[in-house]
């Protein structure tokens, strides 16, 4: 246990700080899942050139080409957060497709797609979930029927964010209808401009359409667009899902939210009394602070494990379940402490933080329960983490 950094790392930190100060005027946030604007693409290019984005992607594919160094990545994250500087793009193309291509893509696929994806020139969406295939993803029904050199793809996807803005989709389709459930799926790439694709926005309880439904009718896609081998899509996608899991549970963001909650409770009053002077609310706040610390230190522990190449084991598995829940509970306390003010949601003189407490409260709940996430996460923890048996097979009735 020694949380000090080596002089090397301290000087790397200085380097990052220096860069951020020097380029303050070029800060330009990416638009989250949306298409980035030009300034953002320039900022991204600058980050890649300096190794603050696409850090470990080989130069041949448009990355910076450094060796993985988790500590340096963390220092970058910390300094960018501290400076309020926009991080490199973190869209699904970069966080899910690129690692997949690097792992199982053909040389041509890597050369063609990785660089423009990193630079924000090509925007991707993900076509996994279907109305009948959520937690049971292997049950997907979107079919790809051979037609000469091509497939003709028909079916429906759901929970596809960015579908309206995306150039391309990475998509799971059933190419071998006769094969066992997990063996008949292929992972395939195609343009969202291909004829036969219809995108319908899917509005959620937050009032925004964070997702879409995507309908395919005889969408013609060359067979060569399959990644990782025909019929191997289930295994390719599972590798990708691992990357997605790593995306969630960022303690920095949770810490920032908690700090905002403290500010709120110190500055807002009811009948002239500060909210934090309500002992019941203060008690809840402290219980959440303990959870926040727990999550933060658990993050340092899993970071250390990654650095030494060990598996983080159970400490890693529980992050998602605990992290989303903590975010949700922070929002819940803010709403409760604000009382009637806490239910406001549209612009007006009394709205707090642009309604983000309520929005987070609902959105985080979606993350916790979307597609039975919490249930499935508990299955994973009990089976892989604790070695309890899988659900027994059912009798055929």
């Amino acid at each position: 246990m020694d949380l000090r950094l080596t002089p090397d790392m301290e000087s790397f930190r200085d380097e990052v700080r220096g860069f951020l100060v020097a380029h303050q005027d070029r800060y330009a946030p990416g638009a989250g899942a949306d298409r980035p604007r030009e300034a953002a693409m320039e900022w991204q290019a600058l980050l890649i050139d300096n190794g603050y984005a696409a850090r470990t992607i080989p130069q041949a594919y448009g990355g910076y080409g450094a060796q993985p160094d988790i500590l340096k990545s963390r220092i970058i994250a910390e300094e960018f957060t501290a400076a309020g500087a926009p991080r490199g793009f973190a869209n699904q193309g970069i966080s899910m497709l690129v690692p997949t291509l690097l792992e199982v893509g053909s040389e041509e696929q890597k050369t063609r797609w990785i660089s423009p994806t990193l630079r924000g020139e090509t925007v991707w969406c993900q076509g996994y979930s279907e109305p009948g295939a959520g937690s049971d993803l292997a049950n997907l029904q979107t079919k790809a029927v051979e037609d000469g050199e091509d497939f003709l793809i028909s079916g429906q996807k759901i929970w596809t964010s960015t579908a309206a803005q995306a150039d391309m989709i990475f998509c799971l389709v059933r190419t071998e209808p006769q094969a066992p459930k997990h063996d008949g799926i292929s992972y395939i790439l195609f343009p969202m401009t291909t004829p036969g694709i219809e995108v319908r926005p899917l509005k959620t309880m937050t009032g925004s359409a964070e997702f879409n439904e995507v309908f395919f009718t005889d969408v013609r896609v060359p067979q060569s667009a399959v990644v990782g081998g025909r019929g191997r899509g289930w295994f390719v996608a599972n590798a990708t899902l691992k990357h997605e899991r790593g995306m969630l549970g960022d303690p920095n963001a949770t810490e920032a939210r908690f700090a905002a909650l403290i500010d709120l409770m110190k500055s807002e009053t009811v009948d002239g009394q500060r909210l934090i002077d309500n002992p019941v609310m203060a008690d809840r706040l402290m219980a959440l602070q303990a959870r926040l610390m727990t999550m933060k230190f658990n993050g340092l522990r899993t970071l250390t494990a990654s650095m030494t190449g060990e598996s983080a084991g159970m400490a890693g598995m529980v992050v998602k379940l605990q992290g989303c829940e903590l975010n949700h509970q922070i929002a819940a306390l803010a709403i409760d402490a604000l009382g009637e003010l806490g239910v406001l949601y549209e612009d007006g003189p009394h709205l707090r933080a642009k309604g983000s407490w309520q929005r987070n409260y609902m959105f985080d709940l979606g993350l916790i329960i979307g597609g039975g996430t919490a249930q499935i996460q508990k299955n994973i923890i009990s089976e892989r983490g604790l070695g309890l048996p899988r659900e027994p097979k059912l009798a055929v009735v």
Partner: protein
Amino acid sequence: MDFSLTEDQRMMQESLSRTLAEAASLDRVRKFAGDPTDRGADVWAALTDFGLPGIVISEEYGGLGLTLLDAALMSEALGRAVAPVPFMGTVLAPLALRLAGSAEQQSKWLPKLASGEVTAAVAISEAVAGARDGAGVTASGGKLSGKALFVPGGLGADLLIVADTGGALHLVEGGAAGLTREIMTGIDLTRRMAELTFDKVAAEPLTGGKDVLARLRDAGWVLLAADTLGACDVMIEKAVAYAKERKQFGRVIGSFQAVKHLCAEMAAELEPCRSLVWYAGYAFDAAPDESSLVAAHAKAHLSEVSRFIARTSTEVHGGMGITDLLGLHFWFKRVGLNRQLLGGPERVRALAAQMQGLTA
């Protein structure tokens, strides 16, 4: 000893639910929610035909002369339907007039309220739930000044009952000079609230002080608890129905023990609440000594139970639970607003301890 609803009460509740199924279908609610200029006049008209505006107004003034328990049963049906109806004022304003109005005030307003010709709203948030964001109304020389926030149905009401910072009640006509109203939009788009600004607005005093305010508060708590009860019922029904129909891994998800237990936990939490709400409604008229405490507990407890049910029902629905398509969120947000109106559960529990003399 009969702890049950009468046949009349059941029938009237079912009848209101049928009326609402027609006049305030989910499609109609959706339209209301999406259009801030929609005042829901058609819904109000249907409810006026039903007699709802006169529910607690005595027959001599053209009302139905029923009890708060009856009103709570109506509130439950409105919650079930997530009906876009400002019901709180419909019950609390006549109560205020009955308890603290002069004969003249009563005969001027009650018949019009009973017929649905005018609507009323009650501005007691600051006095009950505490003043936030600089709100509060002071009375001086028959004039009111200041701000009252979170007034359900306050945007269009013709009659306003307003509590001042001392807890005294005042009657204000909707068209009074110096009164301005702004919409306050919350998560629950089925019930809009108003911010009222008073700039030396003429008001008539009502007699009676904090005791009358306490009665209004208690009645408000019961109505909110009942509305939440109705909304929770629907959230459980929807979860169970979805669990019976939705298949994953080759089985309906309702056959998975984890899902079954979530449903069972919801039902086990909610079912006993029904009796609490009934009793809170009954006690308001039949056992006034117990009324405040049981109203407080009904309000606070239903708030907690409904948060659990809103979350758990969403969880059973998986991703579909958070879509606008399914519309579960209308109930989710309905109970979210009910939780905070007239005080969140922590505040209400603190009051419950005080009113028993347990704490200072």
